[in-house]
């Protein structure tokens, strides 16, 4: 037989065998003294703590303010962690959507698929100053509906290419991201060829994973800063397959 108070003092406890009314005053006393909390089970606290302790969160979190964006980073990483459990995944997606809305759910999903971390890596290379990086990352995330474009197979190439270049020029991060999956992949490539053909010489980084293609498009003005860091991005078009 185990005692709930003794077990609780060791941290989490499940499967308590002895629950008698006499224990309640002591549990309440400890609760009132701020020593004890009650949860359904430990899974959700463990999940949240694991994300906060992850290297990826520690990399990202200095560049976002506490509050909504910080929570969305954690939730994006949590979505990744539970992606093999469709029921939990959908439940958390619905809670993020219900609390914040479509844009914020999109941010969490971009964190989930690693795009925000990649974006941060580029921003650090381009802007270096942490305050600049933070403001650009925040600005990008707040405009994510405009700057992260999901391409569909029926999208018109010229129109989308012009839209991407316009948005790269118009936002403080000077970049945009385009995605395509399955049948939309060839359309993404055509859009990128169109952008590459622009005389202003936009910088493009392409990543392919499975049937998904992701491309980061940078303004021509960032070329020199990226070249300074001598990364593969300095090429006309860098492609990586993960």
């Amino acid at each position, binding site marked *: 037989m185990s005692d709930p108070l003794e077990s609780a003092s060791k941290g989490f406890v499940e499967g308590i065998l002895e629950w008698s009314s006499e224990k309640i005053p002591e*549990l309440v006393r400890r609760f009132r003294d701020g020593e004890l909390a009650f949860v359904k089970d430990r899974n959700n606290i463990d999940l949240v703590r694991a994300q906060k302790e992850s290297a990826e969160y520690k990399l990202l979190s200095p560049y976002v303010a506490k509050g909504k964006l910080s929570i969305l980073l954690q939730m994006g990483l949590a979505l990744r962690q539970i992606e093999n459990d469709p029921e939990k995944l959908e439940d*958390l997606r619905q*809670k993020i959507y219900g609390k914040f809305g479509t844009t914020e759910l999109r941010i969490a999903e971009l964190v989930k698929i690693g795009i925000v971390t990649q974006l941060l890596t580029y921003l650090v290379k381009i802007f270096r100053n942490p305050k600049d990086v933070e403001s650009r990352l925040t600005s990008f995330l707040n405009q994510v509906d405009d700057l992260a474009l999901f391409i569909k197979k029926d999208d018109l190439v010229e129109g989308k290419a012009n839209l991407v270049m316009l948005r790269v020029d118009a936002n403080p991060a000077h970049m945009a991201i385009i995605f395509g999956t399955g049948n939309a992949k060839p359309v993404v490539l055509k859009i990128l060829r169109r952008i590459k053909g622009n005389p202003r010489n936009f910088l493009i980084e392409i990543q392919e994973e499975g049937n998904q293609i992701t491309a980061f498009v940078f303004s021509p003005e960032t070329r020199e800063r990226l070249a300074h860091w001598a990364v593969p991005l300095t090429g006309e078009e860098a492609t990586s397959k993960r």
Partner: protein
Amino acid sequence: MEVLSLKSVPKEFKMELLKSLGLGVSEDGFVTKEGKPVMDEYIERHVRFENMAIFPGSTIVIDDNPLSIASYIEAHGEIV
């Protein structure tokens, strides 16, 4: 702060515990305070008895899900 999992705790014990904390349960299974369903301030939904988490301070009752837990920690600091 230590955390006690209520996963395997008998319903009657949890009901008694809630009562001692000044809380109750409605007929349709929601945690109540002064007879009114308690709202999870982070997801703005009423908290179900089966899925509750209760934190000290001003007896904060929330739904036990990652978003509410993360929001609580963001607002109040680390739990454990």
